[in-house]
C-alpha cells in the first residue's frame, strides 16, 4: 500500500516532535548544562563550566552514604518483589481455570491506583496504632508497638508492594512464552516437583526474572514518594536528595549533578542487563 508521502509524514510528525523538543530534549540539555555551574555561598548560581559539583559529590562521605542507601533499598526491594511475584506468576501459569485472566488483571491492577494512595495505605497499616501492630500486641509477640514505618524498613515494605505488579507483569509475560508441556514431560519422566522446578521451570523463566528485576531496580533507584513518606524524612536517597536540593535548598547545580549521576547509574544498569541477557541466551 502507498502510505503518506514525505511532506505529509513530516506534517504528521511535527506536532509531537515539537512537544518533545520543547519539553524533553531542551530540558535534558539544560539539566546537563546546569550540572556544570556552581553556586556562590549566598546561593546565587554562577554560570561557568566546571566539574566541581561532581568532584565534591565524589569526595563527600554523605553522598556515598546516600548512594549506598539508594542501592541497598533498590536491591532489597527488587529481591523482595521477585519473592512475592514469582509464586503468583507460577500459580497463574499452572492454573487451568477461566478465572486465570481476571486474576492476572487483578495482580497488575494496583498499578492503576496512584502510588501516593497506596503509600498512604502502608502508613496506616504499619503505624503504631495500625492493624499490623495491633496484631503483634494481641499475639503478645512484643510488649510495645514495633517501629515499622518512618524508617528504612517502612520504605522497603511499601516500595516492595508498589513495585511487585511490575515484576509480576514481566514474569507473567515471560511465562506466557513457555509451554506447560516442558514441566509435564519432566514430571512424566519421574522428576520430583522440586527437581522439575530447579532444572526446567526456573531456567526457562530466567529472561522474565531479569526483565522484571531491571524494571524494579530502576524504578526503586528513582522512587521518591514512597521512601520520602514511609521513610518519614529519615531515609535519604539520591531521589530525595535531588528534590531537597532542587526545591528546598535551591541548589540547582547540585540537584542537576545528582540527576546526571543517577542517569549514569541507569546506564550502567542497562549495560549489565544486556550482558546478563546475552549470558542467559547462550
Amino acid at each position, binding site marked *: *500500500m502507498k*502510505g*503518506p508521502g*514525505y511532506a*505529509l509524514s513530516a506534517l*504528521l*510528525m511535527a*506536532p*509531537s*516532535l515539537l*512537544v*518533545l523538543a520543547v*519539553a*524533553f530534549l531542551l*530540558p*535534558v540539555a*539544560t*539539566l546537563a548544562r546546569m550540572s556544570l555551574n556552581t553556586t556562590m555561598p549566598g546561593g546565587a548560581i554562577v554560570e561557568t563550566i566546571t566539574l566541581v559539583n561532581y568532584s565534591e559529590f565524589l569526595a563527600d562521605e554523605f553522598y556515598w552514604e546516600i548512594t549506598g542507601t539508594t542501592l541497598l533499598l533498590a536491591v532489597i526491594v527488587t529481591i523482595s518483589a521477585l519473592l*512475592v511475584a514469582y*509464586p*503468583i506468576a507460577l*500459580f497463574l501459569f499452572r492454573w487451568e481455570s477461566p478465572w486465570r*485472566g481476571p486474576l*492476572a*488483571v*487483578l*495482580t497488575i491492577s*494496583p498499578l*492503576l*491506583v*496512584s502510588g*501516593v*494512595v497506596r*503509600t*498512604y*495505605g*502502608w*502508613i*496506616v*497499616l504499619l*503505624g503504631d*496504632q*495500625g492493624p499490623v501492630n*495491633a496484631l503483634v500486641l494481641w499475639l503478645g509477640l512484643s510488649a510495645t508497638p514495633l517501629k515499622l514505618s518512618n524508617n528504612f524498613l517502612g520504605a522497603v515494605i*511499601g516500595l516492595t*508492594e508498589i513495585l511487585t505488579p511490575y515484576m509480576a507483569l514481566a514474569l507473567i*509475560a515471560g511465562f506466557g512464552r513457555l509451554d506447560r508441556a516442558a514441566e509435564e514431560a519432566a514430571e512424566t519422566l519421574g522428576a520430583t*516437583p522440586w527437581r522439575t522446578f530447579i532444572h526446567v521451570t526456573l531456567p526457562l523463566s530466567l529472561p522474565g526474572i531479569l526483565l522484571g528485576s531491571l524494571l524494579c531496580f530502576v524504578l526503586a533507584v528513582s522512587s*521518591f*514518594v514512597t521512601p*520520602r*513518606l514511609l521513610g518519614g524524612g529519615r531515609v535519604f536517597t539520591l*531521589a530525595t536528595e535531588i*528534590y531537597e536540593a*532542587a526545591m528546598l535548598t535551591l541548589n540547582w547545580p547540585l*540537584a*542537576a549533578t545528582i*540527576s546526571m549521576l543517577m*542517569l549514569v547509574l*541507569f546506564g550502567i544498569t542497562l549495560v549489565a542487563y544486556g550482558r546478563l541477557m546475552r549470558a542467559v541466551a547462550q
Partner: protein
Amino acid sequence: MSRTAFRALVVLLYGFLLSPLLITIVISFSADPFLSFPPSDWGFRWYLEVAGNATFGAAARSSLLIALVVTAIALGTGVPAAYAIVRGSFPGRDALLALLTAPLLLPAIVLGLAVLLVFVRVGLVATYQGMILAHLVVTLPYVVRITAVALSTLKPDAEEAALTLGATPWKTFRHVTLPLMLPGIIGAAALCFLVSFDEVVLSLFLTGPRLSTLPVEIYRYVEFRTDPQIAALSVVLILITVALVVLIERSVGVMRALGK
C-alpha cells in the same frame, strides 16, 4: 511443597499485594477524629469532610481539566505520528519511534527537575500550559507506542480495497483505518488520562500557590497528617479508576489496551 501449601502461600501474597487498598477502604468508614485500628465508631464522616474540602475540590478540578486536555492533545499529536511512522516510508522511522518513547526511560524526579529549569525561565511554572506540556511528555510515549502497535497489526487489505474503489486517502483514513484503530486509541486515551491524573513527582516540581493538582495535595497532606480523610478521598479515586477500567474492559479488553 505440597499443592495446598503453595495455594496458601499464593493467597497470602495476594493479601500482601492488596492490603493497602483494603485497609484504605476499611479506614475510610472510620468515624474517629484520628487514625486508629480498629476504629471505635463507623460512619461517612470523612466522606462529608472530603466533599467540603475546598483545597481538594479546587485541586481535583485542576487535575481533571489537565488530564482531559493532556489526553486530547496527546491523541491529536500522537496518533498522526504513529500513523506516519507505521505507514510512511521515510528513513529513520525506527529512530523516531525510539525518540518518542524515550521520555519513559527518564526517572520522573530527573525529568521534573529538567523541566523546572526550563519552565522557570519562561514563566511556565505553576501554569496550566506548563503542567499540560510536562504531562504530554510522559503520556505521548504511551499513545505513540499503543497506536503504533495497533496500526502495525492491522493488515492494509481493507485500506487498499477502499483506495482501489476510489476513496480519497483522507476518506480511507477516516472511514476505514481510524475505526479499525479505535480499540487501541480508546486504550491509549484511558491510560493517558490515568497517567496524567495520577502524576505526582513531575507535578511536585511545577505546582505553586496559583496551581496545584490532586495527587500533589494528597502528597502534601500525607506528609504532615494521616487521618482518615485521605482514605475517603482515595476510595473515591479508586472507584473512578475501577469505573474507567470496567469501561475499557467492556470496549477493548484491558490487556489489549495496554498493548501487551
